[in-house]
C-alpha cells in the first residue's frame, strides 16, 4: 500500500520540470565548485610546502635565538577536506596590513553552502505543493476515496519526496567525489571518509527537515500559491536571518569588555608600569646590597668596574650577587605585572567564550547553523579545529622554549663570552611543528548536539505535518 504511494510520488517528481532543473543545477554547481576547490587545495598545499622550505632555508643561514620566534611561527597544513569545505580555514588575516577583502564581500562557495542554501530551497520547492497542490488538482479527493489511511499517505509522500531529492543530490556528490579522488594530490584517509559520511548523514537530516517543514506548511494552506509564500517566508527567517542575527543578539546578553581597551590596559601594565615597578624593586635590592657590601656603593666608571671584577675576587663575588639580585627583582616585576595582565586577559577570554557559546546556542534555532557547525567541525575547518590548533601550537611553543633554553645553556657552557642570543646558530635539531587533525571520535563527540537538534527538528515537523494532514479539509 505504502509502496504504491511512494512509487507514485517518485514517478510524478522525476518527470516533473523542477526535477530536471534541480538535477542539472546541482550537477553543474557541485562539479564546478569541487573542481575549483580541489585545484585551490592543491595550490595551497604547494604554497604551504614552499613556505616551509623557505623557512628551513632561512634557518640554515640566519637562525639566531633573539628573533627566531617570529620566523618559526607554526602554521597549519591544509587539510584534504578543503576540496569540499572551506569553513573558517582561510588564515584569519585581520592582523595583517595587506588583508584580503574579497572573501569579506563575497563569502566563498563550498559544499556547506550548496547544502544549506540550495538544498533547503530545493526541498521546499518540492514540498510546498505536496498537499495543497494535490487539493487544487482535485487528486487528493480521489486518493482519499480509496482505502488508504491518511497516515500512510502522508508517510508515503514524505518518504517518496525525500527519496526523489536524494537522487540528484547523491549523484552530484558522487561526481564531485570522483573529481576529488581522481586528483592524485588529494589523499583521503579512513578518518576523512568517516567524517565525510557523517557530514552526508547531517545533510540528509538537514534536507528531510526542510521537506517535512514544506509538507507541514503545505498542509496548513489550501492553495499552493499561499503555501509557497509562507514557505519562503520561513526559509528566509531560518536561513538568512536567524544565523546572522545570533552573534549580535548574544552580544546583548553576554557583554564583553572592548578588546581594544583591554589590549591598551595590558600594554600599559606590561610596559610602563612594569618598568616603574622593576626600577623600584631593583633600587631597593641595590640599596640592600650596598649595605651588605659597602664596596659596591662607590661610584665607579664602567671601565673601573671591569678592572676590579677582573682583579679582585671579593669584588667579583659581590658584583655578581648584585647582578643576580637585580635580575631577580626584574623577574619579580615581570611576574607581578604579567599576572595582573593575565587576569585581565583571562577575564576577557572567559567573557568572550561565554558570548560565543551563547551565540552558538541561539543560532542553533536555525538548522542552517546546526549544519554549518556540524560540517565545519567534522571536517576540521571550524571552531573546534581552531582551538585544537592553538592547543597543539601551545604545546609546540613549550617544547620549542625548552629546546631554546637547553641549546643556549649548552652553547653558553662551551663559550660564555659570546652573545649567543644574537649569533647565528645551527638549529637543525629543533622540534618541528606537526599538525595532526583532532581524532574523528572527538570531533564527532563535539558535534553530537547538532545532530540531536537536527533530529528533534525533524521529529517535530514530521509530527506537525502528520497531525495537520489528518485534520486536513480535502474538499
Amino acid at each position, binding site marked *: 500500500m505504502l509502496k504504491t504511494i511512494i512509487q507514485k510520488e517518485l514517478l510524478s517528481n522525476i518527470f516533473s520540470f523542477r526535477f530536471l532543473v534541480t538535477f542539472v543545477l546541482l550537477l553543474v554547481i557541485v562539479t564546478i565548485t569541487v573542481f575549483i576547490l580541489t585545484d585551490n587545495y592543491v595550490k595551497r598545499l604547494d604554497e604551504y610546502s614552499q613556505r616551509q622550505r623557505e623557512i628551513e632555508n632561512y634557518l640554515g643561514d640566519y637562525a639566531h635565538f633573539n628573533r627566531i620566534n617570529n620566523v618559526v611561527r607554526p602554521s597549519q597544513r591544509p587539510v584534504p577536506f578543503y576540496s569540499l569545505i572551506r569553513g573558517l580555514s582561510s588564515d584569519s588575516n585581520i592582523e595583517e*596590513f595587506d588583508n584580503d*577583502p574579497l572573501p569579506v564581500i563575497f563569502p566563498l562557495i563550498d559544499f556547506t553552502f550548496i547544502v544549506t542554501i540550495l538544498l533547503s530551497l530545493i526541498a521546499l520547492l518540492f514540498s510546498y505543493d505536496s498537499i495543497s497542490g494535490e487539493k487544487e488538482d482535485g487528486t487528493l479527493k480521489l486518493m482519499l476515496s480509496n482505502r488508504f489511511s491518511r497516515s500512510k499517505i502522508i508517510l508515503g509522500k514524505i518518504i517518496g519526496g525525500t527519496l526523489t531529492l536524494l537522487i540528484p543530490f547523491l549523484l552530484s556528490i558522487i561526481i564531485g567525489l570522483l573529481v576529488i579522488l581522481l586528483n592524485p594530490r588529494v589523499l583521503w584517509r579512513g578518518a576523512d571518509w568517516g567524517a565525510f559520511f557523517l557530514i552526508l548523514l547531517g545533510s540528509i537530516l538537514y534536507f528531510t527537515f526542510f521537506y517535512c517543514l514544506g509538507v507541514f506548511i503545505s498542509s496548513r494552506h489550501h492553495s499552493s500559491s499561499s503555501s509557497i509564500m509562507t514557505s519562503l517566508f520561513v526559509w528566509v527567517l531560518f536561513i538568512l536571518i536567524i544565523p546572522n542575527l545570533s552573534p549580535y543578539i548574544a552580544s546583548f546578553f553576554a557583554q564583553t569588555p572592548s578588546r581594544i581597551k583591554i589590549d591598551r590596559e595590558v600594554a600599559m601594565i606590561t610596559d610602563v608600569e612594569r618598568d616603574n615597578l622593576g626600577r623600584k624593586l631593583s633600587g631597593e635590592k641595590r640599596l640592600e646590597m650596598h649595605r651588605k657590601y659597602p664596596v659596591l656603593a662607590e661610584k665607579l666608571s664602567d671601565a673601573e668596574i671591569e678592572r676590579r671584577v677582573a682583579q679582585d675576587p671579593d669584588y667579583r663575588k659581590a658584583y655578581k650577587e648584585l647582578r643576580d639580585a637585580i635580575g631577580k627583582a626584574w623577574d619579580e616585576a615581570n611576574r607581578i605585572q604579567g599576572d595582573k595582565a593575565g587576569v585581565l586577559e583571562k577575564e576577557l577570554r572567559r567573557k568572550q567564550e561565554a558570548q560565543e557559546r551563547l551565540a552558538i546556542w541561539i543560532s542553533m534555532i536555525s538548522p542552517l547553523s546546526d549544519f554549518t557547525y556540524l560540517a565545519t567541525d567534522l571536517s576540521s575547518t571550524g571552531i573546534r579545529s581552531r582551538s585544537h590548533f592553538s592547543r597543539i601550537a601551545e604545546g609546540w611553543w613549550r617544547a620549542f622554549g625548552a629546546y631554546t633554553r637547553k641549546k643556549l645553556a649548552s652553547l653558553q657552557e662551551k663559550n660564555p663570552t659570546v652573545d649567543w642570543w644574537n649569533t647565528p646558530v645551527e638549529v637543525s635539531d629543533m622540534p618541528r611543528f606537526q599538525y595532526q587533525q583532532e581524532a574523528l571520535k572527538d570531533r564527532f563527540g563535539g558535534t553530537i548536539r547538532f545532530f540531536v537538534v537536527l533530529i528533534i527538528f525533524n521529529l517535530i515537523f514530521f509530527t506537525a505535518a502528520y497531525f495537520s494532514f489528518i485534520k486536513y479539509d480535502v474538499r
Partner: protein
Amino acid sequence: MIGTVVRKEIISNLVSYKFFIVILLTSILIFTSFFIMHRDYKQRLSDYHIIKPKPNEPIAVIPPNPLSMFANGLEDAMTRSFEVSRIGIEARAGQASGNIIFSFFPSPDFLYIVRVVLSLVALLFGFDQISREKEQGTLRLMIANSIPRAKILAGKWIGNFLSLSIPFLLVTLLGFALLNFDPDIYFSPGNLMRFVIILAVTLVYIALFLSLGIFISTITKKAAASIVILLFIWALFVFVIPNLGTLLARQMVDVPSVRALSEKKEQIWTREVLMRIMEGREGKETGVSRFQAIHNEIDKLEEDYRNKFNRLIGLSKNINRISPVASFIYAVTEIAGTGIGEEGHFKTDIIRYKNSAFLDIVSGKTEYSPFNYQYRSLSQILAKGTLFDIAWLVFFNIFFFALSYFSFVKYDVR
C-alpha cells in the same frame, strides 16, 4: 488606460496574502537590521574614542563611518588601527568584535537585506503576473478590451513596482528617521546625499528583479514553473555567480597568500637585525641607511604583492559582474565608502603616511603629523566604476523588460 491597469494591480496586491507576508517580513527585517547595526556602530564609536591616537603618535585610525550601518562592507578592515614604526605598518584588530561566530555569517545590514530578501520579494511580485492571470482566465478578458498589450505590461510593471517600493521606502525612511533621534549619530549633508543615492540604486535593483520576474512569467504557461525557474536564477545571481567568480579569479591570477607575504617580511627583518648586530660588533657604522635598505626591500615585496592582488581584484570584479547582484554590491558599498575601491584608496593613503613618517622615526624625531583621511568624493567614486555598475543595473532592467515585452506580445493567452 494605463492608470486603470496600475490601479487594478495595486488594489489586487493590497488585499493579497502575499502582500501581507512581504510587508511584514520587510518591516521586521529593516527595523531589526537598523536597530542592530546602530548598536554595533555605537559600540565601535566608543571603541574609537579609546584608540584614538594622541597627538604625536604615528598611528592611523579613522572613526567609524556612519554609512556602514547600511553597508558594512570592508568597514572592519578599514577601522583597524595602523601603527607606523621602524618595522613598517602594524595593523591591529580595530573596533571589530573577537566573537568568532561573526565570521560564519555575513552581517545583516541594509545591503544584505535588500540584496537577498528584497530581490526575492521582488521576484515573488513578478513571478505570476502573466501566467496566473492566464490560469485564472482573466488575461483573456483583459486582452479582449481595446488596451494594447504593451500598455498592459507597462501597467502591471508600474503597479507592482509602486506597491512594492512605496511600503519599502516608507519603512526605510521611518527607520532612518528613528536613527537620527540618537544624538551620537550625525549624518553630514554629504552622507545624506549618499544615502539618497543608495536608496535610488536600491530601487533600480528591486525593479530589475521585478522585470526579471515578469519576463519569466511571460515565457511560462504555469505559475508553478515560473517560480521554480526564478528561484534558481535568483540563487545563481545572488549566491552562486559572485562567490564562484571570486574563487575562479583566484585560480587564474597567482597571488601568494597574505601569510606567505608576512613570513617573507619577517624573515627579511630578522635577517637584517642579525646582520646589523654582527656588523656592529665588527665596528661598522650602521644607521638610517640600513633601515632604508630594509624598507626598500620590503616595499618592493609588498608592491609586487599589491600589483598582483589588484589584478586579482579587477579580474574577479569583472567576472562577478556577470551577475547584476555583484554590481549592486559594488555600487552600494562604494557609495557608502566601505567598498573595495575605497579600501584600496585608504591603504594607499596609509602607505603614503608611513613613507612620510618613516624617515622621521628612524632619524629619532618625536613629532609626527597626524593622519587625516579624506573619503573619495562622489564624483571620483562614480568615475571609478560605480557609474558603470549603476548603468549595468539599468541595462539589465531595460533588457529584461524588453524581453518580457517581446514575449508577451507573442504570448498565447488561451
